[in-house]
């Protein structure tokens, strides 16, 4: 078990999350995939922190978790508001950014 192994594991999870974002139309699953990506980044942080020999990496992960919590709260709130407005959670039908 080396740092490289952990980083590649993190990369794999990140790629899977990315594919989830790309291929799913259900906005809830898209959000879940985003969480997956965030977590893989946290994993990589922890591995590099181990290599650096101090706790900074772990503290960074802690902050990532904080940010993720905030992001989920807001994201889900947006999903609810969106659903109330359009009665859908289909990303393809939410294209207001075009305007």
């Amino acid at each position, binding site marked *: 078990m080396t740092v490289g192994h952990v980083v590649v594991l993190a990369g794999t999870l990140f790629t899977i999350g*990315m594919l989830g*974002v*790309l291929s799913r139309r259900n906005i809830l699953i898209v959000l879940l995939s985003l969480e997956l990506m965030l977590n893989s980044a946290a994993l990589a942080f922890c591995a590099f922190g181990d290599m650096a020999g101090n706790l900074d990496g772990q503290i960074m992960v802690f902050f990532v978790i904080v940010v993720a919590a905030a992001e989920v709260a807001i994201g889900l709130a947006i999903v609810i508001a969106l659903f109330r407005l359009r009665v859908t959670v289909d*990303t*393809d039908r*939410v294209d*207001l950014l075009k305007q």
Partner: protein
Amino acid sequence: MTDLAWICLFAPLVAAVWIGVSPRFRAGAGAPRLAIATVLFAFVCSLIFLFSVHEPLQSSIAWMDLRTPGGGIVIELGVILDQLSILMLLVVGAVGSAIFIFALGYMKGDPSVGRFYAKFALFVFSMLGIVFANNFLMIFIFWELVGVSSYLLIGYYWQKPSAVEAGKKAFLVNRVADFGFLIGILMIWQLTGSFRFDDIQQAVEAGALTGTSGWTLGLAAFLIFIGAAGKSAQFPFHVWLPDAMEGPTPVSALMHAATMVAAGVYMVARTFFCFGWTGGVSWGDAAEVMALFGGLTAFLAATMALVQNDIKKVLAYSTLSQLGYMVMALGAGAYAVSMFHLTTHAFFKALLFLCAGSVIYGCHHEQDMRRLGGLRKKMPVTFWTFTVGMFALTGIFPFAGFWSKDLILDALHEREFHGLFLLSTLTAGLTALYMARAWFMTFFGKYRGRAEPHESPRVMTGPLVFLAICSASAGFFYGGAQGYLSRWQGMVSELDINVSIAIVSSFVVLIGYAAGWYFFFRKPEKAETVARRFPALHRLLLHKYYIDDFYLWVVRSVQQTIAVFCRLFEERVIVDGMVGGTVRAARRAGDGLRKRFQTGRITQYAYVFLAGITLLVIVMVVL
């Protein structure tokens, strides 16, 4: 001592700013008092310096440090206290104080008197900056400040279109001349690597500047003289000065006597080492050209003064003429004499202007001499002080002008400028003629105006008397003043009164007076006859030698054509072509991008994102 100089320099600025930013203070009676206090303070300072400063003192601070490892420049603010600046400070302080106090009466009842005094104080600040400056950049900065404040003061009556025009004219003409000045400064900096006067003087006197450098220095000196010619209103930049009479009379007095026009002469005296009469180095071409311009101005202005009907315009042309004398003296290398004439002239010209102001005030703002007259009895104090001023100006023994003008003639004689000597002697006669004309038209004969004239109040006659005493007595100090100034540079040959020249010039002056008496008092109709006899000459003088018309023609036909062409180029090529083209290109590109890529679909954005990071990773691998 230098601390005092700093305070003295910035006090008027503080006053001006305070009056300017505080509307309540501006409206109150405190504003004029504060301004007057700062000028009186300058006067007191000058007296203190006069008696306690024996060695030149300097103090400077780096205002902007633009040094680079290889060179660069430091822009310094500095004060210099030597005989020259102290003498000039004395003139500015004494004359300025008298004028400031006089203005208290003259501007009474003007609703925006606070604004007037704020501008006045700013003007004095700019002038003090020139007086104290110890380097070229600082003098240039204050030079421009004088330009701005003169613009503000000439256009003080902003309701009058002619005043606004005159302000603009003064500013623009000065700007043209200042351009030459700036180039001159830069050339000298290129030659010596410094802006400071003492460094430059050292470099010049070390004699390192010979050959091409010497020639360049001569050119630079000439360009500096052009700057001085702009402020001192020498031919061909003199056109702004008569128009500047549109400002209130105290402004004209201050500008003509102690500040603006004196600045040019002072600056040339300050930088005289560039003009080649010190240290045995001789590239006096610039000086000779200067003398020539001075003589030309003196003579032309005197002839133009002969046909003016506005009392202030007569005095304005006489100022031009006297400045011509000073510049001639500078050109002859006698800058101590020139500074002495500047001093005496400051006193009697301020006096004459203030008398004119008193007349204008007493006759309810009438300044056309054809509608004045007979004021001798109505305004006795003004009459007598005007008479003293006139005698001083025309050089009647023993009034101030006699001594200073005679010294100038002397200097011209010694330098063997025979043509200029004759011209200036003739000009002395003309001076007597036009002054006699103004005198007789204003104070003798019958009163031709409508409103009843009255003598001015004490606050106005007081300064008149003070200046009259100065004008009458200043001449006796000719030896002292020269001696005092020689301590500054130490190589001036002191001049003494040459009796034979004095007799000749006095004789010419008396002829002028006699002619004036005959044509304008005894037989006024004869003057008309003479004017009719030489209609071409009369018209030439009335049109001021068509110089203004020539400038107008240049602006209208030459400059206008170029401007029209430039505008077409700008509109068609730059705006339509380049600016418009850029806009069109950007809009088209933006439109294309928006339609192609901005679909609002998150998935698509995520694709682009993934492609981006993949590209980054690939780049990292490849590199």
